[in-house]
């Protein structure tokens, strides 16, 4: 499974292709939000509006034949940007037998080949990424994506220390949106930035404007080069805005500024791309995502509970 190529022949980020990817991710999430509102997609959905540039920029510099990604509770954008079939993702959210996880995992437990797993436990995939990286072939990496809320967990520190001690090829990517569930970063810690934890563990670290897809791609590529060479782990802090509340259905008011789609559209328009064309693409993607949801709901079979027992173990004991 390969990610859609958003690079040019020269390997640089193709901004228009990136926009197309980001637009599809955004449209998917909007359709999911609508599905939640009308009751057709139950579950605890954490949507990734505002994080699209990180997902697309990051995946653009990975070789997903060999690299692996571990995601968070806000995973949809990561899976889609990694080229996972949107129908299979939507079917999983809709609890269908043909979903990524046959309906057993749902939004917080999506799994695929390139993006191994999401998690409902903050920080839960960090040590798993470290262990997985021990077995990556030379030159291949594991990317572990987490939010700024995870930085205050003990498991974050245990994982970074272990990764640094064992010099594993992990790129830790923090999507810092300044929010951990329902509280701001300031309510969780006196430490402003995340990038400084690189210094603590003696690993290279950088921070980047996470709404700028080209900057994310460039920053990730730069950090990844020595990681691929066996120099050990690195840390990338991406500043983004969480454009939606923590989860769909949250009654709390939430406002944030900094839409990466607006940013990339402005960049494209500055290069002479017609704004209307971009708007039309967005519209078409919204239409397509709605149609995808409707089609999944109509056509995909509901997960069959009779299979549950057989799915507990890979090899069921007597």
């Amino acid at each position, binding site marked *: 499974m390969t990610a859609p190529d958003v690079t040019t022949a020269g390997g640089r980020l193709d901004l228009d292709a990136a926009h197309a990817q980001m637009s599809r991710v955004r449209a998917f999430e909007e359709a999911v939000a609508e599905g939640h509102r009308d009751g057709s997609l139950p579950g605890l959905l954490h949507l990734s509006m505002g994080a699209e540039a990180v997902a697309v920029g990051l995946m653009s510099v990975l070789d997903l034949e060999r690299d692996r990604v571990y995601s968070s509770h806000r995973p949809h954008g990561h899976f889609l940007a990694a080229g996972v079939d949107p129908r299979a993702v939507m079917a999983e959210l809709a609890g269908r037998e043909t979903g990524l996880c046959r309906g*057993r995992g749902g939004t917080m437990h999506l799994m695929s080949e390139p993006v191994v797993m999401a998690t409902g436990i903050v920080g839960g995939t960090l040590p*798993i*990424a470290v262990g997985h990286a021990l077995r990556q072939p030379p030159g291949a990496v594991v990317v572990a994506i987490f939010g700024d809320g995870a930085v205050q967990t003990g498991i974050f520190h245990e994982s970074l220390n*272990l990764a640094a001690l064992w010099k594993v090829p992990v790129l830790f990517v923090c999507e810092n949106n300044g929010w951990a569930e329902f509280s701001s970063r300031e309510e969780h810690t006196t430490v402003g930035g995340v990038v400084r934890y690189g210094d603590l563990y003696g690993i290279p670290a950088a921070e980047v404007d996470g709404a700028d897809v080209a900057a994310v791609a460039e920053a990730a590529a730069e950090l990844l080069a020595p990681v691929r060479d066996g120099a050990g782990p690195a840390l990338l802090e991406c500043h983004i805005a969480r454009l939606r509340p923590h989860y769909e259905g949250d009654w709390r008011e939430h406002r944030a500024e900094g839409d990466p789609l607006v940013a990339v559209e402005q960049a494209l328009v500055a290069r002479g791309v017609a704004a209307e064309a971009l708007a039309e693409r967005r519209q078409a993607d919204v239409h397509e995502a709605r149609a995808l949801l409707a089609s999944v709901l109509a056509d995909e079979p509901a997960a069959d509970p009779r299979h549950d027992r057989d*799915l507990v173990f890979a090899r069921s004991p007597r």
Partner: protein
Amino acid sequence: MSRNDNLVQAARAALDDAMRRDPAVHVLGEDVVSGGPFALTKGLADRHGVARVRNTPICEGAFIGAGVGLALAGARPFVDIMFNDFMTAASDQLFNNAAKLHFMGGGRYSVPLTVWTIAGAGTRWGAHHSQHLDGWFAQVAGLKVLSPTTPRMAYASVTAALEDPDPVVVLVDRALLYDRVALPGDDGDPWAPRTVRHGDDVTVVATGRLVHLALEAAEQARPSVEVIDLQRIAPLDVEPILASLERTSRLVLVHDEAACGALSALVESAVYERGFWLLDAPIRRLTSPATPVPAAATLEDAYMLTADDVVAAVEAVMAG
């Protein structure tokens, strides 16, 4: 393994043999390079290298999680948790990830993780180093738990666990680590309960060191006692117990755990559910009291079950 091996030596032999056969087997844990406090992994780092036998800092959450990651990447990790009491620090990774990944992923991934850990009182080490948390593991769907009671079964259990595609906790009674006693059925299936003594009047089901104690009690008790070594703590298999009850109709359960613990309760309720009409008397359940494990010798001795306790229970169940 050699014929004279004690349980730890047999387990080490199984791990060593598996590491020789399969380059995917990795060992992680505190002090595993030097062998650890019980010498389980002694010599393995010399033979197989420190890339495959890795010391970890004291961070159970991270190194059980790393075990899950290794498993997802195609390795067969063997993670040593020094005392099962310390599993509390790793519970998220073991219970929420290792145990549930296969199911939550609809079968896409399996987690061939082996966790070796020690349980049990008797050393006067107090409440944080003496628990039997078998029931805690048993009530998490997705975990397999084996509890070998002899060296040959320890060899078989470690071998089977490392070969299994699912997460397996091999939970060994501390009291048996340096034992050499063999039992009938040692060449049998580590996944199945085994009858270690045949009898006609009472069935005693036990785990860990209590299997040996139950055999001692069977010699002393007047009724004819059949002893079953449960061996596989999770998922529970009560078929062999029911088959025994067809003949004896009386059951005594003997487990090292607090009275509020889950393992004995799980066995008891499973038997009542499926074998109520086989019974001529209520099931007797023997456990330790519902307290933390006390440290002082006299207190811990009062806490721990003895062969006399089993004899008394056997005679009581005969009385109805």
